[in-house]
């Protein structure tokens, strides 16, 4: 059991609400007196993940477990899945539609940013079934 277990529904196709979960986690970590660098890394990785779920998967669920020595984030969706995860992990590779690009996203930086800012990340995806991204951030590591 983690110290704090949080679950969020990320709505699909609603850019106005994307970021609510990451913002809430950020505030909670701040209240807990978490290391600021770790808070920033968690918030960035989680916001990118939320945006991905909004753009590609019609929403999903974010499950966050907070402990003094780690934050674990699980992002689950029942979207179309990623055919080639390795390709999707490359910076600049994107399948986002043009309307998303005009919003300032869709540059193919989501997954690479998530990888960059977390200490561990796994992507488990099946075409037609969905995607689960599991990330861990350890305060005091990286940067």
């Amino acid at each position, binding site marked *: 059991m983690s110290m704090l277990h949080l679950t969020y529904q990320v709505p699909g196709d609603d*850019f106005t609400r994307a*970021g609510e979960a990451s913002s809430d986690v*950020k505030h909670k970590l701040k209240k807990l007196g978490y290391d600021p660098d770790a808070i920033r890394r968690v918030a*960035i990785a989680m*916001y*990118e993940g939320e945006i991905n779920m909004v753009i590609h998967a019609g929403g999903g669920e974010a499950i966050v477990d907070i402990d003094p020595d780690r934050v674990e984030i699980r992002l689950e969706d029942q979207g179309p899945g990623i055919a080639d995860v390795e390709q999707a992990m490359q910076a600049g590779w994107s399948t986002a539609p043009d309307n998303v690009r005009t919003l*300032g996203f869709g540059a193919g*930086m*989501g997954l690479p*940013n998530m990888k960059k800012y977390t200490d561990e990340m796994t992507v488990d995806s099946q075409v037609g079934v969905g995607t689960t991204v599991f990330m861990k951030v350890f305060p005091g590591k990286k940067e």
Partner: protein
Amino acid sequence: MQIKEMAERCGWKLLCGKAGEEREAEGCYIGDLLSWVMSRAGENNVWLTVMGNINAIAVAALTEVSAIVLTESASLDEEAKNRAETQGIPVYSCEENTYDTAVKVYEMLK
């Protein structure tokens, strides 16, 4: 320097987020690609952009920049405005382009 003083001296117009105007402005970041800005803008930076949508406000909150300056009179969406107001993130507007604005910011921070 407080962002409020910088805004006054540069002639920027406050669109919303008055509650945050006492924040310190330290450094400047320029960019419109939100994923890029999100991972690189620093706390208390003045962020110059043309991106006035709700996601830009989320990025500003996340990175804890001191303010957003919409250059070349770029528009601010209504919902973005409301969100920035609620979160106390100052959003300014100016007519100059991003380069000219950055030069002014540089002079202020020198």
